């Protein structure tokens, strides 16, 4: 059983409302996570290209905050027993935490807000209870249904970000005012002391409809307009304009300098700012082109997608610039190309078995393999937002030997585990580590172990 209760002063209510309005621009429902020292609201959008999170400090943001967990009680819900997480429709929360505009009648304006979680075995219903205590003894009571979920976060290692800039959001807002209504994406780069923001769409327009061609709008501002600008020149980073607007609009309302951090195109970019006990973060997947990239159009053409930290998306098959420290010989792919080399009867047997079982276990078979057999990404187009922590390092030192291993890696079904498990040869099938017990029971055993391959001269 989890206990959670907190109360908010009117000002905090408005701030919470503003945060919710901002979050609502990403998706319909918000994940609420309560920990001992903070409450976090986060939204990961449906295409997993943008993640927005607000962390409210228990000490400074709330009037009072108490959170408790009975050990073992709700551990089935989350992996971390010191945490409670659930998901609520943003619309429902917004209607409870109305903004400033609703305070027309001064007598009955909100004086305090108390929120309590009702989640005990005795209760018939589990509800999030919001009590708005207004003037003249008016109490507005909201009981919101919530859904227990496992919250996914986009990770972003700030220490590894090589590019950063900081600016007053009102400037950025002025910039977006120039953009047309049909603009979808935003390209940011700097050159010659100027930072250029270009809005564009990739919508395919009919050649005949020449007047419908999308409008490009570039706004160039001086680097001196930034608080500081420490980013590589001619590095094109492309994000969705909608996400950008949501972030700067909120940063502008709280009047806080906004900081952007990123490493390179096709890696996540994070906007962050802090105000009065609230930390806001927006982690956005980027597209774009590196300065040396000769084929900019290819990287722009494909939509990036985020995936969860817990279940990393396939790292692209033909990743090139793997740095020596993280590089490893790839485990043998479970693809046909290896089998003839091994010539093991057992391998072929198990293959045959898997074939015969395939029918009876058709469903489980596919299920077990979805983790590892997700279609690899076409190539070089994007990476997940949920990049492994050490990932940035592999881009630091360009390695001339990269070309050759890249080819070898082509056959590998590139799951995220490859990088997340650290360097060195592994005697496990990728994907196994991620599957639950249920899946493992249904699973068809791997066709071959790494250990069997020794002595064949290929991986010694």
């Amino acid at each position: 059983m989890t206990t959670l209760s907190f109360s908010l002063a009117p000002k905090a209510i408005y701030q919470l409302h503003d945060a919710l309005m901002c979050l609502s621009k990403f998706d319909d429902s918000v994940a609420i996570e309560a920990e001992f020292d903070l409450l976090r609201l986060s939204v990961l959008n449906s295409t997993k290209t943008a993640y927005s999170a607000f962390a409210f400090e228990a000490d400074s943001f709330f009037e009072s905050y108490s959170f408790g967990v009975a050990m073992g009680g709700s551990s089935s819900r989350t992996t971390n027993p010191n945490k409670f997480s659930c998901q609520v429709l943003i619309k429902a929360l917004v209607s409870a935490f109305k903004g400033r505009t609703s305070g027309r009648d001064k007598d009955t304006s909100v004086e305090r807000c108390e929120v309590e979680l009702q989640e005990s075995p005795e209760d018939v219903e589990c509800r999030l209870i919001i009590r708005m205590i207004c003037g003249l003894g008016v109490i507005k009571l909201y009981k919101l249904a919530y859904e227990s979920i496992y919250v996914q976060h986009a990770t972003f290692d700030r220490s590894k970000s090589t590019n950063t800039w900081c600016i007053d959001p009102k400037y950025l807002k002025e910039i977006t005012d120039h953009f047309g209504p049909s603009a979808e994406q935003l390209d940011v780069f700097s050159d010659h002391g100027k930072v250029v923001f270009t809005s564009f769409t990739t919508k395919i327009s009919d050649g005949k409809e020449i007047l419908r061609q999308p409008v490009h709008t570039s706004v160039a501002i001086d680097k001196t307009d930034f608080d500081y600008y420490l980013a590589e020149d001619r590095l094109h980073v492309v994000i969705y304009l909608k996400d950008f607007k949501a972030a700067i609009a909120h940063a502008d309302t709280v009047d806080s300098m906004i900081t952007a951090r990123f490493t390179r195109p096709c890696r996540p970019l994070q906007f962050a700012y802090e105000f009065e006990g609230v930390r806001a973060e927006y982690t956005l997947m980027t597209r774009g082109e590196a300065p040396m990239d000769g084929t900019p159009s290819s990287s722009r053409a494909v939509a990036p997608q985020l995936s969860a930290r817990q279940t990393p998306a396939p790292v692209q098959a033909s990743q090139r610039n793997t740095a020596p420290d993280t590089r490893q010989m790839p485990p043998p792919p479970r693809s046909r190309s290896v089998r003839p080399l091994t010539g093991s009867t057992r391998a072929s047997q198990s293959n045959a078995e898997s074939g015969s079982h395939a029918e009876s276990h058709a469903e489980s078979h596919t299920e077990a393999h979805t983790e590892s057999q997700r279609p690899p990404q076409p190539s070089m187009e994007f990476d997940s937002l949920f990049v492994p922590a050490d990932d940035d390092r592999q881009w630091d030192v360009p390695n001339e030997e990269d070309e050759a291993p890249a080819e070898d890696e082509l056959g590998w079904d590139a799951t995220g585990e490859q990088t997340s498990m650290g360097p060195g040869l592994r005697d496990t099938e990728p994907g196994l580590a991620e599957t639950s017990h249920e899946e493992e029971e249904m699973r068809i055993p791997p066709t071959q172990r790494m250990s069997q391959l020794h002595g064949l001269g290929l991986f010694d």
Partner: protein
Amino acid sequence: MRFRTQIANASTFAKLTASLSSLGKTCWMRLEEGFIRFTIIPDQGTQVWAQLPVDAIFEESTYILESNTGYINLEVSVDVLHRALRSAVAAKLSHIRLTKKGNLPLLALTIRTTSWSNAPNALGLPPDTSTTTTTTTTTPTTATNPPTPTTQPAPRPPRTRNAVEGLHQPRCRDPDVHIMLPSLLQLKSISERYTKLATESKTMAAGATTSTSTSASGPKLEISANMHGSLKLAIVGDAFSISTVWSDLLNPSLDHTGLDQEAVERLPSERMRGVAADDEKGWAKVRVDGKDWSKVLSVGRLNPRVIASFIHETALVLYVFLPGSWNDEESCLTYYINSYSI
């Protein structure tokens, strides 16, 4: 083909495009030495023919036009152009030029606004810095005030000659009544109020008097005027009949040069002037679509003087003179509004 100029009067240009964009999506723009013409001919509704001297919106000294024929015809998405020009209103300096991306002709607007911070930019910009997008950031800056260039190319292809040569201004007979319109803002708000009333009243299908009108189903306003300074705006429905009358308006005398006295006297407007003020026969009446009329009146943002020429039961022609160009026939927007029959 070459066209580039500095925009001298961005706010007028922006307001002009705003008024035009309410009437049609695409606009034909004819650039000539000395004149710029804007033409909107929508499938249905009011046509606009606007002619402006170059210096009304552009800086004449920077106006560069090179073409074999002496003019350039462009088809422009007018709301996109308007959108781009809005950025230019507060700008320090804006340029417009015809450019090309592949085979796609574009109008590129480069807008330079004052930078927020006043830090000196000692280095300045190298001339003609090209970015990888379709835009061009411009010319060296001054050392003290770094500008903010904005570039918005609005796609616009030069028209094929045949299509454009076929365009001609509507011809109509001499007007019965011409009168200077009162404040467009007032006229617009009353017109819109009437239109709203008629729209809300479900019984009224087609405005004026009956529901048998063959044309569009919007409510129709009756506008009439005489040569004695009166203008009447009316709407009649099954359940109501309302009208507003302005009086003591000006009936300007038109330019009659080239006509002898006899011919002038034979003009319908002079005949109408002879009819007594209280005589019903002295009124010329047209019926216009309420919504279309409201769009036409959006030109009021330019704060113009408007002379309305009534051709009884046929058409209404508005001559819109921009401020500062009064009696200057060179700068005139002409709106042709057809009258609906009952």
